[in-house]
């Protein structure tokens, strides 16, 4: 079959699954619901593989494939088709998303067994997969925006999955509203794009950017780039819009793994990467992307240092890693960003799923201070968590090492690379290794601090849950081998594979910015980052394995700093003071009392009612209720009208 038939088939199974489970799921048994959901996710994965194979074997070279199915919006010059786009970037994204999604679907079978709303969960999950695939395969910005908002909706629904819990429904709303700010930026960016290029189709836009007279549209392009990055920052939880992601951990753990670690939050990175040519012509905007990414990476990892809630710690880690990806994109090595996106999808979803497994065993307990020594009881979970920790810490020969190293190398010698960005990244790598090993030690190693009644029924999860863990662990190890670094004698195959997609952008960047840092070679860079990781690992093990006295002393010594970290730099409080509180006051004092009660209720609603009553009192006399009178009136009207027509002609 050819691509134009296969691509919709990629999107279809999750949509059908979502519809079937959403409409009829209430009547199905759990087995039936999960069968439908997993089958549709699995089918989607198989189709994704088939599409990848078809694309790789039949298309002439790496040219992107695009097909328009029908016109969706047509208004003036604006034209948006329901069109799908497929190139090597899409290939990587679809494979990553569908594989991870399928594994998480499988895992959820076990995890959600004893929760309410089983069918609802799977229906949302499938719907999410559909929206995510729409986002990835869309061939123009409006359609991408549909997927973009769709995943946002699913994220909202799933964060608030336990909607009876106040904190969960609040977290859902927070996620929705904060990302909305970003979406406004995205919308503005797309509008600007349309204003500039009179089209929103990827291929056309990218082609026309190249044809622009150099320098003339630089300001506009920078504005577009910044606006779109605002959208990306909202979705991917970057500074300053990251605050929703930690709260989003209120959702079920598979959701955190799938949406808030592996796929949806990386949509922003994908958006920036997809628009790489745009950013190549707006280097100032790209520089902002890189700086924001680097700062977010460091900032979030410092917060993660002091978190005691396992999932929240992982959430901050996710923000930090997303910062890495933006850093990669921002310095002009988009392929490295996407590479890290892929490996991160594997090991971070693994971390979350393993955390879910722990949570499952601990009756929902997430405080790491009440864990410890779990490795004896949860062997598989421990092993997989360990592998993922090694991967995220950047230990050589694990997936994270390769991708992170590429980004760091890019930060140093990439087209927009800055030395300080490199050191920032390296510091973050060390911090990452430290807090991850801290978590590992607190949770799995050392002495057990588990409360007795919980310890009593501590158990390893069934194969339904450990199976996907093992699969993801495998991917976390080998996921990086696709791009053996040059410094170790490899050829960075992944980068070369994505060359047709990012080549033009990187080419343009390199031509404009000759950046030849002197000094450190690739090998040296790698050594530094490994060293940072080792220091982090060493400190983590040293401080947290046997006892937690040392950090406690440190915390007492630097009590002020510790307080700040525990309270996450008081950012939430700051936002509350800056935005939420004023809005509250404005709403209550002005909008409610004056506008709503005075103007709307008083003048519009009651006023309209009173006027209607008065007028109706007069008109009522005509409404005798006698139909024969009505008929006579109609006839009178007809006679007069005909008379008028006859007289006129």
């Amino acid at each position: 079959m050819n691509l134009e038939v296969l691509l919709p088939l990629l999107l279809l199974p999750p949509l059908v699954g979502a519809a079937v489970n959403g409409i009829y799921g209430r009547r199905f048994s759990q087995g039936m619901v999960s069968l439908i959901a997993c089958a549709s996710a699995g089918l989607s994965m198989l189709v994704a593989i088939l599409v990848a194979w078809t694309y790789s074997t039949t298309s002439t070279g790496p040219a992107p494939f695009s097909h328009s199915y029908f016109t969706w919006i047509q208004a003036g010059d604006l034209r948006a088709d329901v069109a799908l786009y497929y190139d090597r970037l899409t290939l990587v994204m679809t494979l990553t998303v569908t594989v991870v999604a399928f594994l998480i679907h499988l895992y959820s079978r076990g995890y959600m067994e004893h929760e309410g709303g089983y069918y609802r969960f799977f229906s949302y999950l499938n719907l999410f997969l559909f929206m995510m695939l729409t986002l990835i395969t869309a061939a123009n910005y409006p359609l991408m925006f549909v997927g973009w908002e769709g995943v946002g909706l699913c994220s909202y629904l799933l964060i608030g999955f336990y909607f009876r819990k106040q904190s969960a429904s609040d977290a859902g709303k927070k996620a929705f509203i904060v990302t909305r700010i970003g979406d406004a930026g995205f919308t503005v960016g797309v509008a600007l794009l349309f204003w500039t290029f009179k089209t929103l189709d990827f291929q056309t836009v990218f082609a026309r950017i190249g044809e622009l007279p150099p320098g003339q549209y630089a300001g506009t392009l920078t504005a577009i780039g910044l606006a779109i990055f605002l959208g990306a920052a909202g979705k991917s939880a970057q500074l300053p819009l990251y605050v929703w992601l930690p709260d989003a951990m209120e959702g079920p753990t598979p959701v955190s793994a799938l949406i808030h670690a592996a796929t949806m939050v990386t949509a922003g990175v994908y958006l920036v990467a997809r628009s790489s040519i745009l950013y190549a012509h707006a280097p100032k905007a790209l520089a902002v992307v890189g700086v924001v990414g680097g700062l977010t990476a460091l900032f979030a990892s410092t917060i993660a240092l002091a978190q005691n809630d396992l999932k929240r710690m992982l959430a901050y880690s996710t923000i930090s890693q997303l910062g890495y990806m933006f850093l990669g994109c921002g310095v002009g090595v988009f392929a490295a960003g996407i590479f890290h996106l892929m490996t991160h999808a594997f090991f971070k979803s693994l971390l979350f799923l393993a955390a879910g497994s722990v949570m499952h065993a601990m009756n929902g307990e997430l405080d790491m201070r009440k864990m410890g020594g779990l490795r004896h009881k949860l062997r598989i979970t421990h092993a997989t968590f360990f592998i993922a920790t090694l991967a995220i810490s950047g230990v050589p020969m694990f997936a994270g090492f390769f991708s992170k190293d590429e980004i760091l190398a890019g930060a140093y010698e990439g087209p927009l690379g800055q030395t300080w960005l490199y050191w920032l990244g390296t510091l973050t790598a060390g911090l990452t290794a430290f807090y991850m090993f801290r978590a590992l030690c607190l949770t799995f190693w050392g002495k057990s601090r588990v409360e007795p009644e919980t310890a009593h029924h501590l158990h390893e999860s069934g194969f339904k849950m450990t199976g996907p863990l093992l699969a993801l662990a495998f991917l976390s190890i080998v996921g990086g081998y696709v791009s053996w670094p040059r410094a170790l004698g490899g050829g960075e195959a992944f980068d070369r594979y994505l060359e047709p997609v990012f080549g033009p952008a990187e080419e343009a960047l390199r031509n404009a910015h000759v950046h030849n840092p002197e000094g450190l070679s690739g090998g040296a860079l790698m050594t530094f980052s490994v060293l940072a990781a080792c220091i982090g690992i060493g400190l983590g093990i040293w401080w947290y394995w046997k006892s937690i006295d040392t950090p406690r002393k440190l915390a007492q010594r630097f009590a002020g700093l510790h307080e700040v970290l525990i309270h996450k730099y008081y950012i939430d409080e700051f936002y509350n003071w800056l935005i939420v509180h004023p809005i509250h006051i404005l709403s209550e004092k002005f909008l409610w009392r004056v506008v709503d009660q005075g103007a709307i209720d008083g003048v519009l609603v009651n006023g309209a009612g009173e006027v209607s009553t008065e007028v109706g009192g007069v008109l009522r006399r005509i409404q005798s209720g006698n139909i024969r009178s009505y008929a006579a009136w109609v006839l009178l009207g007809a006679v007069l009208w005909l008379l008028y027509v006859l007289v006129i002609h």
Partner: protein
Amino acid sequence: MTVLFYICAALAILAALNVIRQRTPVYSALSLIVVLCALALVYLLLGAEFMAVIQVIVYAGAIMVLFVFVIMLLNAGKETSRQRSRLARWLGVPLVTAFLAEILIAVWSQFPPVAASPPPPPDGSPAAIGTLLFRSYVLPFEVTSILILVAVLGAVVLAKKEF
């Protein structure tokens, strides 16, 4: 042909007068059936044989049966002669007359009754109508089917014993 038309026309008008003159609904219904059949004949004269048959089958054979059925079911007798609508009572007949006069004037001025030879009659066979119906008028046709479905449901719900 010509004579037949005038006979049918006279029959139709007389029967229509009877429809509105009779106080017993059954007689009105019967007169209406006569009108329908007379019109079916006129349709036949106009070359619309399919519509003529449909007129008899659907209008006279189904719709009017429904009327007669309901009249029998409700045992509708003569209506009483009370008039409440003053408007209808005093203005009714003059208005109707004026309306008819206006329409006739309009018809006469637009289509003067000269014996101009009309174009060849369209093919009113079932096949031709079916082709047109399923080619050009598919959408109205489908919409009508939905209308009928709604009407059926509405009639069932409305006529149900308990509300």
